[in-house]
């Protein structure tokens, strides 16, 4: 998994690409820390170029949401497609995290 961060006053956007699996757990932790530190209230992860997410990846995204919520920030997942979208649907992620198309 790779990512690029863009930031404005109100919103931070992370463009994620590749495959999000267990092996990315250290990287993901670093990303979460980064999001915690920046000042924007809304943190968006843009997923259109993410091809695949495994069950560990789902767990990590949920950890991210919780940590951000504890800091009074909101996590949004945007433009999921393919396998990622199917997993989100089946796991009913929209009940746990804000999903946008």
């Amino acid at each position, binding site marked *: 998994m790779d990512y690029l961060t863009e930031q404005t006053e109100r919103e931070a956007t992370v463009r994620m690409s590749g495959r999000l*699996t*267990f*092996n990315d*757990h*250290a990287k993901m*932790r670093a990303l979460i820390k980064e999001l915690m530190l920046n000042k924007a209230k809304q943190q968006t992860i843009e997923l259109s170029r993410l091809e695949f*997410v*495994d*069950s*560990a990846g*789902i*767990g*990590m995204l*949920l*950890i991210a949401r919780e940590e951000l919520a504890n800091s009074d920030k909101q996590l949004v997942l945007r433009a999921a497609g393919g*396998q990622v979208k*199917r*997993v989100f649907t*089946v*796991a*009913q*992620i929209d009940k746990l995290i804000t999903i946008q198309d």
Partner: protein
Amino acid sequence: MDMIRLGRRRTAKGNDSLPGEPAAQAGVGQPASGPGPAAESASQHHADGDAHSGQDVSGRALLERWIGFSHLQQRTLEGLRFELGRVSDLVENSTLDISGRFRDLAEVAREQTRRVEEIAVLAQAIEIDGEPIPLEQVVNSMQELISEMINNIVYLSTKAMTMVYLLDDVQREVVDLEKSIGEIDAINRQTNFLALNATIEANRAGDAGRTFAVVANEVRNLSRTTSDLAVRMRGKVTSVVKGVRKGHDILRQIANTDMSPQMLAKERVDKTMDCLVQQTHHFQRVLEGAAATSGEMSGNISTLVTRMQFQDLTKQMLEHARDSLEVIGVGAGELAEETKGVLPAGAEVSVPQEWLDHLLGRFTLSDVRQRFVRHLLLEGTALDDQGALDTTAISQDSAGGDVELF
């Protein structure tokens, strides 16, 4: 004297005519033979004033012929009555038979309807543990089960990753701990060194340094104790590290197990369930159609059986016909007897052969022909119980003339 024309038109040769056109030259008392020439002249047209005796003779001949014909007529009528009776019986028996079969058919159709309705009911539910559960309910509960399962997978995945992060932190702390123990060792070595120096200085100071030497010695002891403690601590920390690392490894294996294919299996299950429900609805529609058709069949058959009642009417109509024939027959017989009484003794009455042949020649059913033979020639005495020809009785009778029996 007029001749009675009987029915059919005559050709010049009289081939199509009814036989028995009076063959004048045949004379009185002889059986008429073959289709006689239909010559108008060959008649007993004694239209003008013949001699009285001639008129008597021709009149008598005519009467004799009439009587012969009347006998034939009577027997024909009886034969017809008999045949009509047979027709009536045949229709009655056949109708009863057919009605019975239709009723059986209707029963079968009703049985089918019952079975189809049973299937329609069964198709709506699945029996689980002896209880019929509607299909929609079964499908919904299965889908709920799977959703719960997936929720558990997501929950476990989240917790597993949280644990991985926690153990990452613990391992880092442990590294710090080991460092701290190392520092304790260093401090300890320093303390020991200083205490040793102090002892040496104390000895050099002699008596004045004796108290100091004691303190220095205690410090050295303390140092040794600390050293032992540090060794034990290090041992424990090493065990903890081993344990944490092992746990960490196992947890990583758990967290690394990708359950996303299992989660995606729900898509397939959902689709299958939808198809199942749709198919069941389709079944139901078809079965409802089948039940309706079966019901329609039963209805049609009932109507059919009702329509068989034509047989009653047929029987009555045939009975009327038979009665009429009987009346005519009796009347003809009476008249013949009266006529016979008028004739002088010695008059010969004979069966008009050509009429007979013509009559019998027209039957295509051989058994009908046989029965008529009996009636016409043998006065009905040689028929057995079924109205069939009793051939032994026939052979004994010679009044049949030339009629062939087929």
